[in-house]
């Protein structure tokens, strides 16, 4: 038990002791039941199922509680020392038997430890995947600025998967709002490489095919330099310094009627 506690000793004050004791007890009783069948090597056998399930759940829980992978693996490995001491006591006069038993126990505990680590990694990957999905969903809003004018503020890094979703969202929004002009604002985009520029041009071309004009706004100085250095041709695309400028041009393009309405409103 003290070895177990040592494995997490650098997290003082956390209420892990009680939990740790429960876990150790459950694991040991499960282990005892599993090895009673005399099978030490094949962990896919049914008698091992409850132990494996317990270890998987333990890893999941520890992922959520913020443990490191080594702390989680140490939970299993720390059973080695007491186990070996016990074996040493039982085979005090039998060197050959002691060596055999120690080897079997080492192999078994190592495999259990490895299974625990891989379950830990799997649990962590699940969380990362879920967060990635959420990020994709929240990061591509299409905003209606005016009758017939849409804005698409882009934030963060653009990769192929994201740009695909951005493109699809924008085109679908153009159809559903009947928009004539779409403003793509890239103030929040940190870097632009050839691929991103390519994607932007594709989005503009696709919007044009559907009968909507695109304006790109918010190009930062470094990005303007990169775009020219990369030799990307943005000549066919209308670019404006800020979203406000782009909005003004858009209002003028869809006709003065909208501007007149806007001015008469405060009166």
């Amino acid at each position: 038990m003290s070895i177990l506690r040592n494995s997490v000793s650098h997290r003082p004050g956390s209420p892990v002791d009680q939990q740790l004791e429960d876990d150790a007890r459950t694991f040991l009783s499960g282990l005892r039941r599993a090895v009673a069948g005399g099978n030490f090597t094949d962990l896919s056998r049914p008698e091992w199922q409850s132990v494996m399930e317990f270890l998987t759940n333990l890893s999941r829980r520890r992922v959520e509680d913020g443990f490191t992978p080594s702390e989680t693996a140490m939970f299993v490995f720390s059973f080695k020392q007491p186990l070996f001491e016990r074996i040493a006591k039982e085979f005090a006069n039998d060197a050959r038997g002691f060596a055999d038993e120690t080897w079997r126990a080492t192999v078994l505990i190592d495999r259990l430890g490895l299974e625990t680590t891989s379950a830990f990694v799997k649990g962590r990957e699940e969380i990362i995947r879920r967060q990635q999905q959420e990020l994709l969903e929240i990061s591509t809003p299409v905003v209606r600025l005016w009758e017939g004018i849409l804005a698409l503020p882009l934030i963060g890094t653009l990769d192929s998967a994201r740009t695909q979703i951005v493109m699809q969202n924008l085109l679908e929004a153009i159809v559903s709002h009947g928009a004539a002009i779409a403003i793509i604002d890239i103030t929040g985009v940190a870097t632009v490489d050839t691929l991103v520029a390519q994607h932007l041009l594709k989005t503009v071309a696709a919007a044009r095919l559907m009968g909507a004009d695109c304006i790109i706004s918010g190009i930062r100085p470094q990005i303007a330099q990169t775009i020219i250095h990369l030799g990307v041709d943005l000549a066919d695309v209308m670019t404006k310094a800020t979203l406000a400028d782009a909005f003004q041009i858009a209002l003028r393009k869809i006709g003065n009627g909208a501007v007149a309405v806007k001015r008469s409103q405060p009166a």
Partner: protein
Amino acid sequence: MERIPILKLGEFLLVSIQIDMHDRLAISLQDDLTGKIVATGAKGVLIDISGLDIVDSFIGRMLGNIAGMSRILDAATVLVGMQPSVAITLVELGLSLPGIRTALNIDKGMELLRQSLEEQWDSPGVINKPD
């Protein structure tokens, strides 16, 4: 054999593609439309592809060709109602159809055609504007 109907709407022609295009159909549309533009003396053509879900490179090129032919025959052409998936496919195929005017729906396409006709009449080379 099935054909795509070409409707006369005042001085414009309206082509509404509501079924999946196959290659033969596209070629027969090209024949029919060019013939009809000359026969009716239409000033504009509106191609509505809102019913088109799938395009390949051939159909994409045919759409471009048809628009180009209509232009030489003195009929402004507007492509309207392209689905988002079709637009993405065409761009991915490298067919961004330069030189073809597009609009979101038939209403806006018709407006665009009228505008372009008026611009033509207002240009300095034309002396007598027909009523």
